[in-house]
């Protein structure tokens, strides 16, 4: 297909456009309530960035500001170095996948996917070709003539993703795309998104409250809380070196144990964090004596809740199956090398 004469065009076709994103002190207030309190962020070409945080932390609002669906009260949004703050959403070179799919109910799958290009005035053949390519990628070909009402939830979300791919955006925006799917579909669709990111090499920004999605998909996670960025880093950086107690508590499941530092004889720090998987248990001896309050057998993991003499309530995660019963007396020993120490301001002490 690629003859020598048309080389230039072919190259252009092959390379999926990627874009960088630059946010500078984005603020957004609804009335007197400030939802975003000055967000600075840089996203490089081809990066998969995930905004994660509890509900109401402003992550969806931030995504909408990037998309141009909400106006920022102040600050600047640059896509590929171009100021976008007063550019309408359709001209920003973005595509968005919504939690509720947001497919046009009166259009077929094919028309749903092609509408964006049609609005841009692309010739019919080009729309056809791009819709064909995207639907092949997502194995949606058998459904092209159907309407959204005739599809299952997973298929609908694939159509929504297809609609985004067809636009060949510089920036993919995902707003909790898996929240409405059941658990099995969620895993499948997650894999599909990860695969897409690898094959398209596109820049993707993804909002979720689910840390598993964040940890599994992201190149870079942005943890948001109350309209501010708490920490930016790769999944393992956040897991191994959380900058403060909020991130430490938010990333990792079950949640990190927080113990008053004084109880462990550490006067410098205020709080000590210990991940449940960094504690070993023994029936004979150990640092802390505790009684089992509750046991959760998950097959691959066993999660124990202990009441110990030194730390109070302690969650322990053991790998594999273990036979502990409620009221058993056990000894817990933390992995000293993997303790996290936090100061009075809740920030980590190096």
């Amino acid at each position: 297909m690629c003859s020598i004469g048309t080389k230039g065009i072919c190259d252009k076709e092959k390379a999926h456009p990627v874009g960088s994103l630059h946010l500078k002190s984005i603020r957004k207030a609804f009335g007197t309530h400030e939802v975003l309190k000055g967000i600075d962020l840089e996203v490089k070409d081809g990066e998969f960035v995930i905004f994660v945080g509890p509900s109401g932390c402003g992550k969806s609002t931030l995504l909408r500001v990037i998309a141009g669906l909400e106006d920022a009260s102040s600050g600047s949004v640059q896509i590929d170095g171009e100021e976008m703050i007063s550019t309408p959403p359709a001209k920003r070179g973005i595509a968005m996948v919504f939690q509720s799919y947001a497919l046009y109910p009166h259009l077929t799958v094919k028309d749903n996917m092609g509408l964006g290009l049609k609005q841009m005035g692309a010739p019919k053949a080009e729309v056809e070709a791009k819709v064909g390519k995207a639907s092949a990628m997502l194995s949606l070909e058998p459904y092209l003539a159907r309407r959204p009402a005739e599809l299952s939830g997973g298929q609908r979300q694939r159509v929504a993703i297809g609609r985004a791919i067809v636009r060949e955006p510089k920036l993919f925006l995902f707003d909790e795309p898996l929240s409405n799917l059941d658990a099995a579909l969620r895993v499948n669709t997650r894999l599909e998104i990860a695969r897409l990111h690898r094959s398209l090499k596109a820049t993707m920004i993804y909002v979720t409250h689910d840390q598993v999605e964040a940890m599994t998909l992201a190149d870079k996670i942005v943890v948001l809380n109350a309209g501010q960025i708490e920490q930016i880093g790769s999944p393992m950086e956040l897991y191994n070196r959380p900058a403060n107690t909020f991130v430490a508590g938010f990333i990792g499941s079950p949640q990190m144990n927080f113990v008053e530092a004084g109880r462990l004889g550490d006067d410098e720090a205020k709080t000590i964090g210990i991940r449940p998987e960094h504690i070993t248990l023994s029936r004979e001896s150990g640092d802390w004596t505790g009684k089992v309050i509750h046991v959760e057998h998950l097959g691959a993991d066993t999660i124990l809740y202990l009441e110990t003499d030194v730390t109070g309530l302690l969650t322990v995660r053991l790998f594999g199956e273990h036979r502990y019963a409620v009221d058993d007396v056990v000894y817990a020993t933390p992995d000293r090398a993997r303790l996290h120490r936090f100061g009075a301001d809740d920030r980590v002490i190096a």
Partner: protein
Amino acid sequence: MSKARMSPLRSGFVHLALAGYTVIALFPVVLTIFNSFKDKNAIFRTPLALPTAETFSLVGYTTVLKQGDFFGYFQNSLIVTVVSIFFALLFGAMAAFALSEYRFRGNMLMGLYLAIGIMIPIRLGTVAILQGMVAAGLVNTLTALILVYTAQGLPLAIFILSEFMRTVSDDLKNAGRIDGLSEYAIFFRLVLPLVRPAMATVAVFTMIPIWNDLWFPLILAPGEATKTVTLGSQVFIGQFVTNWNAVLAALSLAILPVLVLYIIFSRQLIRGITAGAVK
């Protein structure tokens, strides 16, 4: 409703109540139609009887069709009703979209202001409206009636439609914005089709008072060329003598177009009224 929760006895009572209501609602209509086919004596002697071979008479209909330009009246009524519904729905839906979609200063107040018309009858302003129409040279035109009826229909249309439009998903509208649809395209192509049941409801509720109105045709457009059916039928009702044959025939004829319009809208209407109640 699931069958398991509905005992036969209960559903029997429900059907009885509904059947009773249907009879009560249909009785005057049926009586009017029956009597319109009888001669004058039979109307008074046996008002509840069906027309028989002896009492059957079309004198009412022939009188109506001979007297004045009755088809013209029909045409006027239809034009006024259909055009008024169209404008009330169009402008009502546009205002409702603005109120439900955009955050702007005074949004709430504007919504209240537009809804006040539901509570204040437009007839209170008759004198001012008449003065206005005289000044604008619109007396004895259908335009005058259309303007008044559109205004009359707007408050309810805005009130009902803005409630429905709030239920249309924001994500859908935003997806449209990202795909490059203009605000008008979002309104006409995404939102309007989704609130169609509500539009039908509003259309029916707006249509009936317009079709039946005697007040404004009498005041604003009593001329022969602009008479509506309701006004046209009044020539048969005199202070001392009333031509009942003709009145009943005229009323029977006047029911027909409303019935046709209702049948067109009814499927959507039922969906509109039960939306939210069921499911």
